[in-house]
């Protein structure tokens, strides 16, 4: 237990959490183990947890996100939202297998913005290859990692559809999703999450994605998932334009019961999303679980209190919106915060997102149908920057691990510098995703057209785009 001695001498409680993960044979750590050696470093508990997590994240998209979004639109557009989220998820998982995984998770050599094509069509990915974790000499099957990341790559684009729900043509939207996954999601995932791994980085100190190299902290996808999808949604709703009748006719949600069902399933699935991102079933996984749980409760509670004060009535929609905002904000921070700072983060994100979706949105007048920008992008930014604060070991946070040495040690945490790094990561994501998304939407608008005719929009997308109705009474 050399690593344990080194860490506990230099650091204290925060970093010691990571050590509980260390198996007993940690004394004989192997640097850069080959595949045969990696096969002996796989823990069935870790693998099981990752398989379960993967299925949980699938449930977040199908059906949870669809129900959450679908309940908020009018009856005539219910099926369009369910179909858009379902097909986006399916198509993106195919793209992920064909080339997405390779672009995101292979080395780009000197290029730190996207990976290569060596694993296109899953070339060389077999039951006998392994993915790295955050611990020296701990591995798990690469196909499990591929599937886990596939659910992320498939649900993130599906988040975007909420921004221009009730007024988008189906086929151009699906084409957008393929292009967006390839040109935006995969590079950002590479920049934030690709690295050689703890047993290899000391020998190949240049083998990482751009934002990982800067030291940006994003445990489960504040930048990669929420800011990324949120800003793309804003571009989409601005370029597609407002719904006919926006602000002049009432467009109340058709079933908040369904929205509540979807949000609840999202919360459950989010444990796979966040805790799965730990890649191992250990003490840190327990911390991530507690943080995810508490930040969500805090944010839902805070939103209800805000509404009670502002409107005099706490609404269910407010409660679930707060819960989602809390989940979004804790996503990047869940592996770095303490349970108590997670609660504070939950309070803060609800205040910010409430102002965003009530006051700011109405002032600016954009029609982000389901508040993808206001909740996911803004909540993601609160989380991404908040991560720098809650990760500080002085506040009970986990700090960061320095993987440039073997075995890895805890790094020296500097909150101010980390905040700057997080802001850089946020800005890069906003510019990359916002810019490319805008170009893609414009090209599709000028070629295939993004918006159905006024008549189709009035009749509803269900009957005119999909030839069926959600409810036949």
């Amino acid at each position, binding site marked *: 237990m050399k690593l344990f001695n080194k860490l506990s001498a230099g650091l204290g409680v925060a970093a010691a959490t990571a050590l509980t993960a260390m198996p007993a044979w940690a004394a004989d750590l192997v640097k850069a183990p080959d595949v045969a050696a990696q096969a002996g470093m796989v823990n069935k508990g870790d693998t099981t947890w990752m398989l379960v997590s993967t299925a949980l994240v699938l449930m977040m998209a199908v059906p949870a996100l669809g129900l959450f979004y679908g309940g908020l639109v009018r009856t005539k557009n219910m099926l369009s939202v369910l179909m858009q989220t379902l097909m986006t998820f399916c198509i993106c998982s195919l793209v992920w297998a064909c080339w997405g995984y390779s672009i995101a998770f292979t080395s780009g050599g000197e290029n730190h913005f996207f990976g290569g094509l060596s694993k296109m069509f899953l070339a060389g990915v077999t039951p006998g290859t392994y993915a790295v974790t955050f611990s020296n000499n701990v591995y798990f099957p690469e196909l499990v990692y591929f599937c886990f990341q596939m659910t992320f790559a498939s649900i993130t684009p599906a988040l975007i559809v909420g921004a221009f729900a009730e007024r988008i043509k189906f086929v151009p939207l699906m084409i957008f999703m393929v292009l967006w996954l390839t040109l935006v999601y995969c590079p950002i995932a590479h920049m934030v999450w690709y690295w050689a791994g703890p047993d290899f980085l000391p020998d190949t100190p240049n083998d990482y994605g751009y934002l990982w190299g800067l030291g940006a902290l994003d445990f489960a996808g504040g930048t990669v998932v929420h800011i990324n999808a949120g800003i793309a949604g804003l571009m989409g709703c601005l370029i597609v334009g407002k719904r006919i009748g926006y602000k002049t006719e*009432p467009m109340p949600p058709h079933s908040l019961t369904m929205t509540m069902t979807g949000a609840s399933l999202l919360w459950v699935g989010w444990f796979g999303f966040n805790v799965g991102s730990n890649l191992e079933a250990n003490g840190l996984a327990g911390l991530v679980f507690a943080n995810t749980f508490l930040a969500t409760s805090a944010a839902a509670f805070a939103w209800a209190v805000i509404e009670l004060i502002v409107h005099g009535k706490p609404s269910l929609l407010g409660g679930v919106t707060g819960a989602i905002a809390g989940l979004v904000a804790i996503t990047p921070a869940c592996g770095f915060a303490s349970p108590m700072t997670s609660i504070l983060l939950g309070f803060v994100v609800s205040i910010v997102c409430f102002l965003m*979706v009530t*006051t700011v949105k109405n002032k600016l007048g954009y029609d982000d149908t389901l508040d993808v920008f206001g909740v996911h992008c803004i909540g993601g930014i609160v989380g991404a920057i908040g991560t720098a604060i809650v990760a500080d070991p002085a506040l009970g946070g986990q700090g960061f691990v320095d993987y440039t040495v073997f075995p890895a040690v805890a790094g020296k945490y500097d909150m101010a510098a980390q905040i700057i790094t997080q802001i850089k990561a946020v800005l890069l994501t906003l510019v990359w995703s916002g810019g490319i998304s805008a170009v893609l939407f414009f090209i599709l608008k000028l070629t295939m057209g993004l918006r159905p005719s006024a008549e189709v929009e009035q009749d509803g997308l269900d009957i005119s785009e999909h030839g069926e109705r959600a409810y036949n009474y």
Partner: protein
Amino acid sequence: MKLVIAIIKPFKLDEVREALSGLGVQGMTVTEVKGFGRQKGQTEIYRGAEYSTNMVPKIKVEVATTDDLAGRVVEVIQQSANTGAIGDGKIFVIDVAHAVRIRTGETDDVAL
């Protein structure tokens, strides 16, 4: 013959029906309707979107009655649907020219 049309608060329907039964009224037609009068609608807030619904849900009761009974029917509805609050509704009485019972072909007062 008269047709008594009453617009009432939905939760008062049962009381009105019982009161009319007590009077010997043997049938009525009930419809769910929306409308507005002096009673203001409610405000619904969905995140940032605020909708004031100026249409309030009401129940429309229609009772066809003989000329003799019409006055009592109106009186009973007025009493049983009354809460004293704004939005209790209105009663209209119109003349009916002719009535037919479809099963037997009986007409007018006998058909009611």
